[in-house]
């Protein structure tokens, strides 16, 4: 099996290469896409930082004439929005995309084209927001967009639409990557890497990505509803017509609270990876940490309302959310003490990443403790919406995300650049950051306790906040200088650092067992992992893998091959052939951009056309995926013969679809929550007029919905008996088209005007949800027909039909639930 490493490197590089120049726009490789995410996120961090500087300049003196409230409101809204949606989330996604395959011993992620599409959605969505900022029409209702302030009555311009559409666009990116990361962790690992042998970072990303799958849908739904209210006057949040502004607050924080942990967990994952390296021993309490992060993930979904203690929620709920919020301290403390225990039982050595870890610890502990203080309702009622809260969440986010990410930057920079670190600028940069940060935000706690609310563009000399604000402003500028120094430091290390052979930190994880900077294929052959993957010896494994002595140590058929493994045991169960570079993700991104821009400028027919084009591009993009012939078992190295993923029983797309269904199911669940919430809590119920459709129309719709799963089964049955699937596809097509047409009829004829009352508006949303999902089912059917005709489906290559069946099953179930709730609600009213 031993081969010449240079020859293998050249052969694999040819297969995995991305074209240079403009051809880079076709990149789907995780190293390129992950780096793009991180660089773009760093750019947006700089923009968000500039905005913060404008805020601090304005607040440096009382009654400053620097900027007025029109501009100031845009600046603080955009500062928050950019830092959350365009910096923190994409940065952690970029790190995960870049690092995960390297840590897991895979050559790429499961769906490279999906990550590339996710990147374009992120970039274009971000540019829409940035464009609005420069045009002076940026969102100005605060980053949580409380309605009615963000409604068309009180924010008539396009500012709020920019937020709702731009951020939702960026969230498409987050959703695609969440599914991508979950499936990649569960299916694309090195052989032998059971779940409990995974490097701890993979556990963190697994939990984070799962949280994203269920955490983002409430906000996506909320944004869609609010945009529908703004654009078409559907009164979901209008209390005069049975809506409730508090429903928006609930949907926002149902997302917003898990969001905080989505940001914190990957950073903590980086710490759990880095601390053992500098303690020179494996992480202690691996199992305890895994349990802690899973508990943290669950808890984070139960305590969203602690952002809403002052909106007037019942006292019993207050006690529940208060206790739950305080409880978060436990899994967090477990992690911190696992890190301390690791250092205590190791031989700690000091280096720049450790400096940032020390900084993290001080800042994050204080931020966590003020968080416990805020969980105490009487205290919360005093300091909520003051600068105390601003100080608290900067301690948590800068302490819990930025400092660990800087530790990660200094730790992994050699892996990315292939250059050894230098310390000349790193240490002064750290101290500037640490001192600047604490100067800015430690005193800001006090500003808040002295009564300064957040989001005020000015204050008065008598308020007693003058010196505190000036101090914060000075600290803010020191902080900015620190970041500038870090940027310079990174640039210089890349230019001037000395090259090294392998594993400069003496680490014990797989990303150091590859050449640096990483080759496009990652590993020349894939390792077998027999111990926990943070106890490996990269310096020994590296040359073995480079010489092709692992699995798949060959270049075959021009295929980009990597191994798929059993979800838990990590035993190989398939060879996955990954897609080559392609412009399709860029085209899909551009047509999605067209749809979003058209909606922004209220050109709804253009938007509809662009949405159809986007859907068409997805169907078209799948036209030649997979194989046109049965290959049977193929050698994977070490005497192992495996099926290709097209013929495997558990291929990644099936799992991906299951998680996509979980996401859209969460959207439906959020919508149902909204229906029940409005019905029980909103003023002006019951509605003046309810739906009376009779029985025939709903029965026919139900029939059309059920035709989906039946037809999908017929199609599978036909193909497995060696026949063509046309009958089954026709049943699905007819049933789907009929269901869609009848749903339109139901909405037009039986439903009262959705603009009249939130009851009709939510029923409209439920039926619209069903309509849209049946429409997507038809795309599956079209794709099946196209790919059957192209020869991509055979009795052994049934993946397409299995995917369609899964989707149809969900659509039938979800459609029937939507129909039943929309129809049944009037009876219960």
């Amino acid at each position: 099996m031993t081969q010449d490493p240079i020859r293998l490197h050249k052969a694999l590089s040819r297969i995995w290469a991305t074209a240079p120049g403009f051809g880079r726009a076709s990149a789907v490789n995780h190293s390129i896409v992950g780096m793009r995410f991180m660089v773009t996120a760093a750019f947006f961090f700089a923009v968000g930082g500039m905005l913060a500087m404008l805020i601090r300049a304005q607040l440096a003196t009382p009654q400053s004439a620097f900027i007025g409230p029109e501009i100031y409101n845009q600046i603080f809204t955009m500062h928050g929005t950019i830092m959350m949606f365009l910096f923190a989330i994409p940065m952690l996604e970029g790190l995960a995309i870049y690092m995960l395959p390297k840590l897991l011993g895979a050559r790429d992620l499961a769906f490279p084209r999906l990550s590339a599409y996710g990147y374009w959605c992120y970039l274009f969505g971000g540019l829409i927001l940035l464009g609005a900022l420069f045009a002076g029409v940026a969102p100005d209702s605060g980053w949580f967009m409380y309605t009615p302030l963000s409604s068309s009555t009180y924010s008539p311009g396009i500012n709020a639409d920019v937020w709702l559409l731009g951020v939702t666009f960026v969230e498409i990116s987050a959703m695609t990557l969440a599914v991508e990361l979950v499936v990649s962790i569960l299916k694309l690992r090195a052989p032998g890497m059971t779940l409990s042998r995974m490097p701890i970072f993979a556990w963190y990303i697994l939990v984070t990505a799962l949280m994203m799958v269920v955490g983002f849908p409430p906000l996506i739904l909320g944004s869609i509803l609010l945009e529908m209210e703004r654009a078409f006057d559907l009164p979901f949040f209008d209390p005069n017509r049975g809506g409730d502004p508090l429903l928006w607050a609930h949907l926002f924080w149902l997302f917003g609270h898990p969001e905080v942990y989505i940001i914190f967990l990957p950073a903590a994952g980086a710490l759990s990876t880095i601390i053992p390296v500098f303690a020179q021993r494996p992480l202690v309490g691996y199992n305890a940490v895994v349990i802690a992060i899973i508990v943290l993930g669950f808890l984070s979904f139960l305590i969203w309302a602690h952002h809403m203690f002052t909106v007037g929620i019942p006292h019993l709920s207050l006690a529940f959310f208060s206790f739950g919020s305080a409880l978060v301290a436990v899994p967090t403390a477990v992690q911190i003490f696992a890190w301390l225990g690791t250092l205590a039982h190791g031989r700690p050595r000091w280096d720049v990443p450790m400096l940032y870890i020390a900084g993290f610890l001080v800042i994050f502990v204080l931020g966590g403790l003020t968080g416990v203080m805020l969980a105490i309702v009487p205290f919360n009622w005093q300091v909520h919406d003051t600068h105390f809260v601003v100080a608290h969440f900067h301690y948590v986010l800068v302490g819990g995300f930025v400092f660990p990410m800087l530790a990660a930057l200094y730790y992994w920079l050699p892996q990315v650049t292939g250059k050894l670190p230098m310390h000349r600028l790193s240490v002064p940069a750290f101290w500037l950051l640490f001192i600047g940060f604490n100067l800015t935000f430690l005193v800001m706690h006090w500003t808040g306790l002295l009564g300064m609310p957040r989001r005020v563009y000015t204050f008065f000399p008598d308020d007693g906040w003058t010196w505190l604000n000036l101090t914060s402003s000075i600290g803010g500028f020191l902080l900015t200088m620190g970041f500038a120094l870090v940027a310079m430091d990174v640039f210089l290390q890349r230019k001037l650092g000395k090259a090294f052979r392998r594993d400069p930190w003496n680490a014990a994880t797989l990303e150091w067992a590859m050449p640096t900077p990483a080759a496009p294929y990652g590993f020349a052959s894939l390792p077998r992992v027999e111990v926990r993957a943070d106890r490996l010896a990269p310096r020994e494994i590296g040359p073995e893998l480079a010489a092709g002595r692992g699995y798949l140590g060959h270049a075959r058929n021009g295929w980009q091959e990597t191994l798929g493994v059993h979800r838990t045991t990590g035993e190989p169960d398939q060879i996955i052939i990954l897609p080559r570079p392609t412009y399709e993700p860029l085209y899909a991104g551009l047509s999605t951009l067209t749809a979003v821009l058209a909606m922004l400028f209220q050109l709804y027919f253009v938007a509809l056309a662009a949405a159809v084009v986007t859907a068409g591009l997805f169907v078209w993009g799948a036209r030649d995926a997979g194989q046109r012939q049965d290959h049977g078992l193929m050698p994977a190295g070490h005497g192992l013969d495996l099926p290709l993923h097209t013929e495997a029983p558990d291929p990644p797309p099936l799992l991906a679809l299951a998680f996509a269904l979980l996401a859209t199911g969460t959207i439906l669940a959020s919508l149902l929550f909204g229906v029940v919430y409005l019905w029980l809590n909103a003023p002006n119920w019951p509605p003046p007029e309810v739906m009376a459709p009779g029985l025939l129309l709903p029965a026919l719709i139900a029939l059309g919905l059920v035709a989906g799963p039946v037809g999908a089964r017929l199609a599978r049955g036909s193909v497995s008996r060696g026949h063509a699937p046309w009958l089954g596809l026709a049943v699905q097509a007819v049933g789907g088209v009929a269901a869609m047409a009848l749903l339109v009829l139901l909405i037009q004829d039986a439903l009262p005007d959705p603009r009249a009352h939130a009851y009709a508006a939510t029923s409209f949303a439920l039926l619209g949800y069903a309509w849209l999902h049946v429409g997507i089912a038809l795309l599956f059917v079209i794709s099946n027909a196209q790919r059957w005709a192209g020869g991509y489906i055979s009795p052994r290559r049934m993946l397409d039909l299995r995917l369609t069946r899964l989707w149809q099953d969900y659509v039938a179930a979800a459609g029937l639930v939507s129909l039943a709730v929309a129809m049944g609600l009037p009876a219960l009213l």
Partner: protein
Amino acid sequence: MAALPLLGCAGELSVLQPAGPIAGSIATLSWAMMIGSLFLTALMTAIFFFVVWWPRRAARISARAWIIGGGLILPGLVLPPLVVAAVVVGERMMPHDPVPRIEAHARQFFWTFRYPDHGGAETRDLLHLPAGQPVDIHITAEDVMHAFWVPRLAGKLDAVPGHTNVLRLQADTPGRLEGLCAEFCGLGHAHMRFEVRVHAPDEFAAAVAAETTP
């Protein structure tokens, strides 16, 4: 507490200079929690440098003991008393018995206060209160969300269109206080403040009656 004059807790809007029993008990709770937080932060920082600089001594505590001691026992000692204290303070703030009510109605960008027990007199951006007597403020909003806050008397509560929230206030002595809108409500948010005039109980009715009813 010796650092108090240095730090300066005084201010017309300071949470730490309470002018009534509700804000008073919250201020006490705040002090206790802040001192506790600073102590715990110092403790954690000290432990960090202890394990980094003297790992051999720190290794005498087993790995399991580090995690159980720090992750479970430490929060187990701190959190329950804190939550109990919070419930006790919180219970004291809750409206139990019927007391006089005043209505606070928020709109962009001013406050209207109505006194139903005094013939429905109305004041704008000026709230009259009796000293030494609890009052329930019934908070509503006309247009967007606002929040009613008199930091020296009690916590804040949001004014939500379509809902009524009730906040109990009590001022100790006659005097002048300040209140403001604490929930971002648009262009005029920074200037949406109001004055609170606390009167001796026997002068309160006269002060309200002196306001012209619109």
